């Protein structure tokens, strides 16, 4: 039965059909599939499936990314409330858009994916000053700072990632906190993340989940 649920859910997600995806999940729960199985055997593998199809064909578009992440986040949130015991979180990330940048969508997609991958997320909002990224990461014991920037000047600028790196260095936090950046300018120029001093970047929210999980492991080690 789980097989059918997985197939039906994957198809709905690929078709960006939110209503159908939610219906598949609700029917499954009604028929006795456990909330744990829904998250770990249906939702997470679907995200991974998406990663695979993206890396093979560079072919998923914004509508799909968005729907995958929102549906996944929605289902996960709903199921978590019904979990018998709280699941173990992988780690913690604080995320926001760079100072001067109000483009909030990329961040939102990434957050959706992270939530369903059991990564704790603190959303710092948009137009976040570099000091705030660092202060919040410290206050919340986060292993990773995520910075989203959709415009060339906020991605490259002095008050974005470059300054966050500088602050981490000054405060001796570089071993404890990693930086990941994302957004159109970084997809455009694959080397840019290094130029601005980030540890990693990811082209889409789904890949971001995997890369961030990797960064968290690195810090925890």
């Amino acid at each position, binding site marked *: 039965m789980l097989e059918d649920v997985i197939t039906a859910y994957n198809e709905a997600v690929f078709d960006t059909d939110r209503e159908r995806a939610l219906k598949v999940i609700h029917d499954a729960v009604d028929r006795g599939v456990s909330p744990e199985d829904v998250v770990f055997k249906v939702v997470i593998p679907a995200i991974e499936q998406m990663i695979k199809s993206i890396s093979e064909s560079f072919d998923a578009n914004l509508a799909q990314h968005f729907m995958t992440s929102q549906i996944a986040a929605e289902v996960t949130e709903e199921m978590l409330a019904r979990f018998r015991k709280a699941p173990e979180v992988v780690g913690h990330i604080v995320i926001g858009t760079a100072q*001067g940048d109000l483009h909030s969508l990329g961040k939102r997609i990434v957050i959706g994916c992270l939530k369903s991958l059991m990564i704790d997320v603190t959303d710092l909002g948009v137009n976040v000053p570099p000091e705030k990224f660092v202060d919040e990461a410290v206050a919340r014991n986060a292993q990773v700072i995520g910075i989203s920037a959709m415009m060339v*000047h906020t991605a490259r600028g002095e008050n974005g990632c470059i300054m966050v790196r500088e602050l981490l260095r000054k405060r001796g936090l570089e071993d404890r906190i990693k930086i990941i950046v994302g957004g159109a300018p970084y997809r455009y120029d694959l080397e840019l993340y290094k130029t601005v001093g980030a540890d990693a970047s990811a082209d889409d929210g789904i890949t971001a989940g995997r890369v961030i999980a990797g960064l968290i492991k690195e810090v925890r080690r």
Partner: protein
Amino acid sequence: MPVLRVNQAGVERSISLTPGLSLRETLHRANVHLRSTCGGAGVCGRCRVLITYGRTNAPTARETARISPDDLARGVRLACQVRPEHDIGINTQVRPEHDIGINTQVRPEHDIGINTQVRPEHDIGITVQADVYPSLSGPAGHWRSLADDEYAPVDISPMPDAPPYGAAVDIGSTQIRVSIWDMRSGRRIAGRIGLNPQSYFGADILTRLAAAAESPDNARLIRMAAREAVGEALQDMAQAHGLNLREVGQVVIVGNTAMLALLSGRNHGLLLNPDNWERTIDCSPDDTPALRELWGVAESAIIDIVQPVAGFVGSDLLADIIATKLAEGPDSALLIDFGTNSEIALWDGREILVASTAGGPAFEGGGIGCGMPAEPGAIFRVEQDEASGAFHHETIGGGEPEGICGSGLVDILACLIRSGELRENGKFLHHHAGGRLQIVIGRTDMVLTTQDIDALQRAKAAIAAATTRLMKLAGMHPEKLRRVCVCGAFGRYLDVRNAQFIGLLPGIADDTRVEHGGNSALAGCEALLFASDRAAVLRSVAGKANHYNMSTDTDFEELFIDSLFLRPMRWPM
């Protein structure tokens, strides 16, 4: 001094090389302007040239990331990454001759063949011969005359007491339009359109603003590029019509905020800070005498840069509103000026709600492999015969197609969705096949990829979301709209039914008037040139206008996502 030999469409030229300069810079100085959207950062991949002989620096990491190993081996390089020190020869046409026209996949009975097969050697998806801006590729002939049907209607009364001539200028991010008038008889003598040479520094306004902020030297180059372009257009008309520019007593200029700030050379840095995006930016030049001298107009000439509304909403939108008389009657009206940064105005009978929305240059052909602006050579209309499935197309100017402009792209999307080939979410039905549409027309071979469609979806979503948001703020149902004005080069050819079908324009009542404004910002500027009290006219429009900032609007985001889908706008949202 080492020499660069350029073969451009079969014509050879020699240019001396200044060591240290990139090939792109060298070519630019010699008036060979390669396409670019990244301003020479090595990331857009559009400045490809073919090195035919000579040694240069090895390909950079940016080049290996963007050029296939086969093409690299063939000598294809990014001009912005090559810094030649020795004699070198290049060809601006990257595709080998024999690639043109030979295609085993042409389906003769169809004008456009749909092929979802990946063809590795066509991965670039750039139109043949379209690598160089045709209208910018030589010192002469930058400027094309505006055809009679390209002017939007304008109401003016002659000014018998004015100095003999006046000029109206609309500085767009992509194109500049200039017209010259006989003020005393109220007759338009000539008009010109040409590409904004600032494109060299980047296709969108932000890349240009950021480039200007980099150094005072850059800011000067960017400022002078636009100033000189206007001067050339004036010169060109003066020569063609035997005018003495010294008799030009007035120049009125409209444009978006970024263009005006860059032109005046003042305050453009402010636009990089969102704190200023709801304010009005002062774009008046403080060196008017220098402008008069550069343009050769009367020493006493009035040079009036019409000030922008607020934020990025410029005076080009005010000019649109004036030209279309948008807010002069009780009839509710929607105006969209399509561009990289589209501007929208909604008149509800009491207030003009205005917003700008940066969807990117997709509808102007930017960032789309087979795209081009609505200029001669562009396919502007595509229709599919329902019975036979065959496609028909029309090209601006009627010649061999060079690319597809925005309205043609809208038609293609609508056709593909109607036939079921493409789904509402922007995916080809046969997604497993790599998802690319091959378009074969005569000898021209183009591809439309899923990435291209994604860019069009985003551009469409940004415009649709802002339109819907303003309608909601005004509490207006689209069926209540009496008029819809579509402005900009793209609007001129737009098929309204197709635009509604993919959700770019709202569904409106059958008897709603749809007006294709064309170059209405220029027309509004012309009306301002003849206004006896310009400030009063502007005040009456600006006084009714309220700017809504989409960047801080929380509903916008939901609307944007919903609008990514290629389907008619939903109401209520």
